[in-house]
């Protein structure tokens, strides 16, 4: 039996559970099956909904329970009474026990301290009120944990995943290798054990440990502070080891480093330039040339390129818009069911099953032929207000720590150029509706009526010049960084015709959102052409890594590895 097969006795146990007829042993068996078989859990969820869905009285019963609670609230001046449940005897006992427990606690406190907690001096209370915990949300993002290998962190709230955006904060890497990419463009590769404080997008402090800094030509001078000196990169790649006493070995692999000692040293009282191929030891007592030893450092996070199979596993949803069968006439070919990772076909409305409008172009593709010899022929055309909705099997969740990537090809037709309403876009849409206008929250990537690439979300509009050209294909790649406890952020990169798509995500994006707070779950994807617009869409990919959405081989063909 494979892990995916549900044991035959599960059905009977499920029925007994639904009808509240499980014995002790049967319950244990049922629980074990749920625990071991994800498919069994799905059946359990479905059957619970079937049962409650056909139970006409279910909604009435819940309303009745609400009513009991409301009566309880209304009858209590503090509005904090427990619900008037069926177990009123249990509630009375609960209250009695709670009151007795409080009395015992108060008596104990009086015996031990000589006073009750309400006799505390008012200053203590005030001090507590004056020091609210710092909210992470109020701090700005300055860097990204780009990659990590075998990492153990020593902090209470360590980075959770590669791609996570980082606030300015103190981090201790106990073991492993981690690469931080600062928003200024500088990369810092840390080898544990190392303690770093991310001060800003242009500054970090290393208290102890080993690191390699890769400068970025467009960024301002990056300041790296160690206990005995400050280093400023000048088009640099350099490594440094900082010992527990603060003494530092500096090895310059490329470019130059300007060193500013923290204290006046015996031999160095002015800024010093250490050039490529040289190394120096710096501490309070000495400053001397040492041998350059690049091998002492981990200059990059190890790890070979991912296999194609692994990359494909990171692809959550895909659609080539390639119809199973070419219809007659061909533009009526059924393109609505292609791809994988979807709960249903493309529909005209979010909650109705009418097929989406849109023309199938099964012998046409937006994918540049050079990008992939295995290109999937077929794309779709939406025009004049056409809308297509589809629901993801695995939604994009902003209520958790995760990173998502979305890519697609888009082309605007010049036939429909005119004034206004010729925008086209693809958006992620949540189930949640805004109260006043019942508008759903969404994250939108597209082309506006002025032909600018556009990123829209939660009261943010990001548009970028120059305008895009009609009848020209663009490759859109978006990155969504979701954080459970901190702010979320969205990035959009528009690749132009014939532009090389990098194997790793770029530092420079076309549009960046400002960080925003969102805990929505985006389960729907919508494609839309404005009422005077005509757009082609092709090769939609949603994945959890950059590679998974920019690898343009057909994910349904066997990997060519």
């Amino acid at each position, binding site marked *: 039996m494979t892990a995916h097969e549900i044991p035959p006795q599960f059905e009977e146990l499920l029925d007994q559970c639904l009808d509240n007829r499980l014995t002790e042993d049967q319950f244990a068996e049922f629980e074990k099956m*749920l*625990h071991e078989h994800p498919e069994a859990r799905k059946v359990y969820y479905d059957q619970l909904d079937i049962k409650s869905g056909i139970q006409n009285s279910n909604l009435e019963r819940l309303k009745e329970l609400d009513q009991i609670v409301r009566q309880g609230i209304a009858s209590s001046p503090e509005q904090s009474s*427990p619900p008037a449940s069926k177990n009123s005897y249990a509630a009375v006992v609960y209250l009695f026990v709670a009151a007795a427990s409080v009395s015992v606690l108060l008596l104990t406190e009086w015996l031990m301290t000589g006073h009750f907690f309400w006799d505390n001096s008012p200053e203590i209370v005030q001090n507590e009120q004056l020091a609210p915990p710092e909210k992470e949300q109020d701090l700005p993002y300055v860097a990204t944990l780009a990659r990590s290998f075998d990492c153990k962190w020593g902090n209470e709230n360590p980075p959770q995943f590669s791609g996570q955006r980082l606030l300015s904060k103190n981090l201790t890497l106990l073991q492993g290798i981690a690469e931080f990419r600062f928003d200024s463009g500088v990369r810092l590769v840390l080898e544990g054990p190392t303690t770093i404080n991310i001060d800003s997008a242009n500054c970090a402090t290393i208290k102890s440990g080993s690191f390699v800094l890769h400068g970025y030509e467009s960024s301002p001078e990056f300041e790296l502070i160690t206990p005995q000196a400050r280093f400023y990169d000048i088009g640099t790649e350099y490594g440094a080891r900082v010992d527990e006493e603060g003494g530092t070995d500096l090895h310059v692999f490329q470019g130059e480093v300007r060193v500013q000692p923290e204290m006046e040293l015996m031999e160095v009282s002015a800024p010093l330039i250490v050039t490529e191929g040289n190394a120096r030891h710096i501490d309070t007592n000495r400053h001397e040339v040492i041998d350059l030893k690049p091998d002492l450092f981990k200059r990059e996070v190890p790890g070979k390129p991912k296999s194609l199979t692994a990359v494909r596993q990171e692809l959550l949803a895909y659609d080539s818009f390639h119809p199973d069968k070419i219809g007659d006439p061909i533009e009526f070919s059924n393109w609505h069911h292609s791809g994988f990772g979807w*709960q249903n*076909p493309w529909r005209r409305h979010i909650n109705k099953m009418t097929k989406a409008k849109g023309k199938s172009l099964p012998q046409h593709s937006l994918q540049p032929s050079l990008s992939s010899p295995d290109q999937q022929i077929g794309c779709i055309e939406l025009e004049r207000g056409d809308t297509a909705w589809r629901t993801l099997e695995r939604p994009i969740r902003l209520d958790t720590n995760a990173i998502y990537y979305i890519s697609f090809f888009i082309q605007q037709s010049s036939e429909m150029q005119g004034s206004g309403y010729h925008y086209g876009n693809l958006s992620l849409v949540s189930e949640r509706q805004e109260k006043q206008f019942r508008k759903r929250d969404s994250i939108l990537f597209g082309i506006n009526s002025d032909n600018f690439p556009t990123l829209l979300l939660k009261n943010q509009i990001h548009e970028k010049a120059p305008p895009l050209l009609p009848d020209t294909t663009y490759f859109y790649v978006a990155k969504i960084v979701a954080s459970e406890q901190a702010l979320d952020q969205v990035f959009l990169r528009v690749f132009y015709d014939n532009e090389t798509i990098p194997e790793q995500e770029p530092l420079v994006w076309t549009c960046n959102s400002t960080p925003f707070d969102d805990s929505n*779950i985006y389960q729907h994807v919508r494609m839309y052409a404005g009422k005077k617009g005509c757009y082609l869409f092709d090769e939609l990919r949603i994945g959890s890594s950059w590679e998974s959405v920019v690898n343009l081989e057909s994910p349904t063909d066997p990997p060519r590895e």
Partner: protein
Amino acid sequence: MFTSLLERERLRIFGYIRTLVPHNSDAEDVYQHVCLTLWNRFSDFDQERDFFSWACGIVYYTVCNFRRSNKRDRHFFSQELIETMSQERIQHLSNHNLRLELLQDCFRSLPPADQELLLLSTLEKQSVKEFARQTGKTVQTLYNKLSSLRRDLAACVKRKLNHEGSES
């Protein structure tokens, strides 16, 4: 505001609770506790957020507390399973309204006798026994029939979700 939000999400909230609490009457108790907590803490609710997600957070902790207090004399899932299912079920409930709509279509397409049996099964156990007595069938036969009907309905909903686009 609170009432309208609760009204809109009541079925999904109870569906979520019922998943984590295997006995219906326990689930109803938890539901009441949850309603009260939601009411008491509504001032903390950020109205930019999704009410259902916020409620699920409160449900989760209420279920865990309820389990701790009552696990000695009731059936309760392990903490680990509750945690696994709580995450999966929120996602599963994301298209609950659509599935409910499709279920109604599937249910209406059943013969009236099957509809009646399914409705009876949602009432007290006695109803199935009474129905068995009236129809001259054994209780087990009816339970078997119920089981098969529920699976047919689940398959029908799934089919409609996947293929109704091409049927329309």
